[in-house]
């Protein structure tokens, strides 16, 4: 496993910004979405968005056994 590339690190930074550092922007009850408070809903969303970001990072830094040319086109 080599060092992560800058692109994959940036993708990894997205969930930190979205699900943590930006808390003053989304820490409120209204508008309720699907009956749950907005902050609650927002954090549940990141349970699904974080895997997406990491999957992108995985595509950017493919494992050594896979050839890079087959990767990164299906995003």
């Amino acid at each position, binding site marked *: *496993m080599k060092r992560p590339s800058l692109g994959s690190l940036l993708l*990894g930074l997205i969930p930190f910004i979205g699900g943590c550092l930006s*808390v003053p922007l989304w820490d409120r009850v209204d508008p309720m979405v699907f009956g749950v408070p907005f*902050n609650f809903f927002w954090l549940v969303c990141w*349970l*699904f968005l*974080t895997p997406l970001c990491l*999957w992108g990072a995985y595509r950017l830094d493919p494992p050594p056994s896979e050839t890079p040319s087959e990767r990164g086109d299906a995003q």
Partner: protein
Amino acid sequence: MTSGIVAMTIISGIVGVGALAGFYAKSRRKMDLEQWTVGGRGFGVVLVWLLMAGEMYTTFTFLGASGWAYSRGAPVFYILSYQPLLNVVAFFILPLISDVGRKYRLQTQPDFFLLRYGSKHLSALVALVGVTCLLPYSQLQLTGLGVIVEVASYGAISRTLAMFIAFTIVAAFVFVSGVRGVAWVSVIKDVLLLFAAVFVGIAVPYIYFGGIGPMFAALAQAKPHHLTMPGATRDLGHGWFISSVLLTAMGFYMWPQLFAASFTARNSNILRRNAIVMPLYSITMPLMFIVGFCAVLVLPGLKDSNMALMTMVRKTFPAWFLGVVGGAGALTAMVPAAIQLLTSATLFAKNLFRPILAPNMTDGEVGRLAKLMVLLLTGCALFLAIHSSLSLVSLLLIGYAGIAQLFPGVVLGLFSKRVTTVGVFAGIAAGIGCTAFLILTGRDPYYGLNAGFVALCLNFATTILVSLVTTAHVAGFEELMPVLAATPETAQGRS
């Protein structure tokens, strides 16, 4: 009282099945120290996932999260925030740690420090930090077991007695199972817990309020401040939220048992794929919060917030179902407790006692000392559990504040050639000292920030500054660490 007997019978049955599964998984393998602690090598994706996921679902998840949703309100959301983020950290650092661990057949976290920094004193310090921080974590599991039995027996069995029974079962379980047995019991516990969480999390708000939406509407009406930070607290605001999330996300894989679990992966890519899907595993957390929020309106004035979930289940469902939830909860406490105690005992014997005090011990003697330590450490955890009234979440936050102090040494060690042994030693000492001072003098949170996070910043600064004025003297460490040795072009042959 008959309800108590029904519930307790079912709990005992579930715990019994779990224990048998552990004994069975173990009985087919010969056990030396390596088998006992890292289960041999070559765990595939399934077992590694179980070992790691087994630590995602602990009593903390089950009783702690609902308890904090009940007593603190919105600050509990920090758990929902850090759980996906710890996987981001894992995605980038675990494969590198795993490479080193597999290549040099490392067994424990201090082994990693010994390899990278070449100092048995630093590795002993790391072992000491691990043993110390695992104590509140295993204490948390015993407290959880005590709460479950106390509620499920309708108060007939006192919490102290319940914790004493739990102590006996957990110690026996660790003794005979070892890590492989424990990993397989995780399967049973996760399936049960998932079932219990989904059912309880959906049924409870439906029964009392007609759905999750009406429940939140009623709560927002009755307690408008409960659902935004700082919730029912005065000092757990946004600064605390961000600092606690960052601290726990960085600290999670510094837990010695999880760090060492990464050594057992057959290849590093398994760990990256794990990290991608693991955030989905946290989907039970919101359901636990929901039960806690319901309890705010349905069960006001509970004397102990840790009991919120179990009391809610007891009030709502028949005794047999209380037994199922209690059984799931009991396994959820036992499995992590077993892994934590096993790790802690091994750290003490292998990385602290032998290198510093008794260099001539054989592996067999280390193994026997480790087994003795299981008893001693479980006893300590029991003692602390009986004499402490902290909430489960607060206990874990104390553990994190300590264990996260290993993060700079690991990450700088992986990515930088410049970091030195003295620098890391000074950093950990400063971080632990600062954490202990702030927490023991009641300064947590410190100016609105998590005390452990403040200490971690000091730790990073100390490590970097001291490293700059000292020289790295470990000969050949660049070759030891595949990441440091490999330039991007030559790294492709490694996996």
